Structure formats: structure tokens, C-alpha cells
């Protein structure tokens, strides 16, 4: 078992660890927690979030801290713990909210009874119109350019899926993977870069190429009424 207090998978702050350290005094613990709360508020707020989102992130930071108070007080200044924990809590928070708001584009096929994944049937392919990166195109535009009429209650169809598949076939496996992760599952470019052990710029470049290729492929596809091969 890895007992190094600072090493953890995916840069998570240590959680659920036992501690035989002497307990801090109530006054010391109280002062530390107050300082931590305010430090986390400042850090989360700096990133331009809505205030109540900031508060929810701070709550997440405190919950992480509560996992091993004596050790964290020994090993981290309040600012350092706030900095690391806020960053991680914010990533989880953002991802949950993207899923909850169905923002970004979903490329997940949902079965008729809605039992697959977390997307209900009505939002199987495309929903929302939030740009993923400033200045970049949206996959929703791609879906529109396929000739499919996309509204708030897009329903999957064999035709739409086939056209989308035809576009994605133009991409390399890595481009397809990046496109799916970012535009399909709502991961940020930074998260994808961390998972792929690449710098952010590389992922961003590949993603831009992928979107351009997909759009070009969409432009070369036959019109709706001509049908598309499903192979």
C-alpha cells in the first residue's frame, strides 16, 4: 500500500486515510478551518464562477479536508490545501454540471427504453449549443450540416447515426477519441490531455483538426433524401 501522503492516483488529495497523529487543539483546528474556507472561496471565485457554485465547491473542499484533519493540518498550509483541493473539486463539479445540464453534445446511443447511460432518449445525439472552446465550431453545427433538423428533442435515427459514423470514419483513431471525449462526453481539453499524458496544446490542435475533417466530410455527404449507406 502506498503510504506516501502526497502521492495519489490522478492527483487526488489524500482521502480516507487513518492517522495516529496527535489531535490538534480545538482552537488551532477552528482557526485552520476558517482560514481554509476563506482561501478556498478566494481561489474558486478567481475563476469567474457564480457565487453559489463557489460555495458548493468550498463545501467539497471541506469534505475532503474532513477525511484526515490532523494529517492535512500537519502537511498542508491552508492555502496549499485549498489550492489543490479546489482544483480537483472544481473539475468534478464542472463535469457533473455539464452532464446535468446536457450541455455539449452527446453521441451516445440510447436504447428505446432509455436504459443506456445517463442520457434520456430525447437527447441521444445533440443537445444544447454551448461552444466547447471559444472560436471553435460546435458539433451541433456539424449535426445541422448533415441535413438533420436538430431541435431540443432530437431523437436518434438510423439515418443520423449513419451519417455521423461516416464523418467520424475520416478521422484517425486518436482524433476520433479526442472528439468523442470532448464533444461527446463533456470532458475538458485539459482533462483529456491529462489522461493521454499530452500537453493541452497538442490535444487542442488534434481536436481542431478532427472537427475540421468531420465538417469537411459532412459537406461531402449526399443530401437527406438520397440516403446514406449504413456500412
Amino acid at each position, binding site marked *: 500500500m502506498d503510504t506516501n501522503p502526497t502521492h495519489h492516483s490522478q492527483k487526488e488529495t489524500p482521502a480516507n486515510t487513518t492517522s495516529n497523529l496527535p489531535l*490538534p*487543539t*480545538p*482552537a*488551532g*483546528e*477552528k*482557526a*485552520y*478551518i*476558517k*482560514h481554509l*474556507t*476563506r*482561501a478556498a*472561496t*478566494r481561489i474558486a*471565485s*478567481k475563476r*469567474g464562477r*457564480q*457565487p*453559489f457554485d*463557489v*460555495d458548493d465547491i*468550498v*463545501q467539497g473542499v*471541506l*469534505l475532503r*479536508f*474532513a477525511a484526515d*484533519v490532523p494529517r492535512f*493540518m*500537519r*502537511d*498542508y*498550509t*491552508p*492555502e*496549499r490545501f485549498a489550492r489543490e483541493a479546489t482544483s480537483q473539486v472544481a473539475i468534478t463539479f464542472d463535469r457533473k454540471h455539464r452532464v446535468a445540464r446536457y450541455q455539449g453534445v452527446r453521441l451516445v446511443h440510447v436504447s428505446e427504453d432509455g436504459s443506456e447511460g445517463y442520457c434520456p432518449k430525447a437527447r441521444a445525439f445533440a443537445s444544447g449549443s454551448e461552444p466547447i472552446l471559444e472560436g471553435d465550431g460546435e458539433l451541433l453545427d456539424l449535426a445541422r450540416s448533415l441535413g438533420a433538423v436538430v431541435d431540443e428533442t432530437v431523437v436518434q435515427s438510423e439515418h443520423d447515426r449513419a451519417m455521423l459514423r461516416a464523418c467520424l470514419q475520416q478521422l484517425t483513431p486518436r482524433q476520433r477519441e479526442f472528439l468523442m471525449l470532448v464533444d461527446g462526453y463533456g470532458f475538458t481539453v485539459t482533462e483529456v490531455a491529462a489522461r493521454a499524458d499530452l500537453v493541452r496544446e497538442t490535444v487542442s490542435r488534434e481536436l481542431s483538426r478532427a472537427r475540421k475533417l468531420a465538417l469537411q466530410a459532412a459537406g461531402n455527404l449526399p443530401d437527406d433524401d438520397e440516403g446514406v449507406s449504413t456500412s
Partner: protein
Amino acid sequence: MNRHQSAAMVRLLLRYRPDADVLLGVVEVTDTASGGPDAVNDRRLSDTPDADTRLTWNLAASGQFANTPVLHSFEVIHALSRWQADGLDVLPRAVADICHRFTNEHREGALSDTPMISALHSRVASEAQLPITELLNTNEPRTSARPGLQQDALHVARSLEQLSGAIETAFSTRRLTDHEAETGSNEHNRVVAFCALARELASTLADHEALPAPGTSAATRQALRGGLPISDRERTALLTALTDIDQPDRWALVAAALDHLAADKNCHLAANAITEVRWPRLSSSTRHPGYR
């Protein structure tokens, strides 16, 4: 009919953490027909007048309040302390009054056995209605940031850290009475609280682009007035420094004053402290004596 009577009403939603004295507010506008901001055409302006406050203003492109910033949301650190220092003048007056009533009512927070449980559960919320005209920003934009003063900010921060260490060491060498040891010393609690706030003030000044932190400095002054084992002369000098610390162009003087306090051989703060104190670093440290 005055302008408030004809104006659209908005909801002011508040959340407060009494333990940490952190206040958050969001304005909800539901009536765009009566001159309220139109969410589609609004611009948002972010305003950071100091390191303890962040405001967001709506700037409407058209309508009754075209090009007049209207408060959209805010975060205020040390809100209650800030009220006592400057009446929360960073907010529109009516909003500041509502915030003060709210924070004052809940200043005690929830009673709990442990600080951690108290921090997690002690959150209160409220809402109020007020005319949108009370949210207008009629002040000139404030720019507190002084890029050229970053070095002074760091110097002040370092001096504050050193002084906190000196105070802790001076207190730790004093023998507790039996009663204090048995019941938990109030003086110990006050020293811990003051030093924690002084360190927070130090790190806030160091990390926030040479912006002052009037809320944190107000809280630190209150902790000082609460009683520390220091002489009256030292208390006066420290209070003056903690007041001047809100003015960035006086930071060089503040740093010198704090250094003098810590180094003055006649100052009993420094008794046996210089050779024994551990100087906490501004960057992450592996041991943080202020929180034992």
C-alpha cells in the same frame, strides 16, 4: 411616484457561512419588462476592488439602465468584520444594509461539538426583495491594484509572518497556570486566533496582485483588540500598522513597523524569540505551527 416605486423588483439571494464569515449573494431578475436587465443582451463586468471582495455587474445594452452597471452577484470575505470597519461600502447601500442584518442575525453560527462539523453544517440562506434601482453602481470604477507595489506587498506579508511567529513563541514560553492548563486557556485561544488571521492576511496580500484585504485586516484588528499578552505600546503600534495596511502606498512603512516590532529588544514580544522562532515560509510549508 419616486423612481424606486416604479422600478422592477428583484430578488437578492444570500448565503452565509458564519464560522468563516463568508457572504455570497446573487441577484435574480424576473421582470425584464419594467426596465430590468435583459439577460440576452447583457454584458457582465467582473470587479475586484480588493482581495476580499468580488463583484459582478450587469451592463445592459439598452433599456432604462443602459450602460449603468447593475449588481449581479458578489462575494465578500470577512463580511461582518468588514461592516464594522467600513460599513460594507463596497456594495450598494441598500444591499449592504440587508447583508449586515442577515450576517449579524446569524453571527453565532450553529452550535456543534467540533469545528469541522460546525464548518460543514453551518450555512444559512436568506432572500430579500428590493427595487432594481437600489442595485445601481453610481461609483467610479475602483482600481486598487498597484502592480508596482508587489514587492512591498511581499515584504509586508513576510513581516507579518515573522511577527506571528514571534508572538506564538513568546506566548509558548510563558508558563500556564494550573487553572489555564485544566480549563483551556482563553489567552491561548486568542493568540492562536490572532496569529492565524495575521498569517491569512500575509498570504492574501502576497497572493492577490498587490490588492489590499480590508476585510481580513479588520478581522485581525478585532482579534488584536480581543486581548493579547503584549504591552499597550506594542498593541498601539500593531494596531496602527494593521490600519495602515489597507493603504497600499503605506506598505513600505507598515513592513518597517512590523519588522521593528519583532526586532525591538525592548519589546517583550521578541523576548527569547529571535533565536528560537521558526520562520514560516510564504510558500507551502510542511509544518504550520500556528495551527497546533
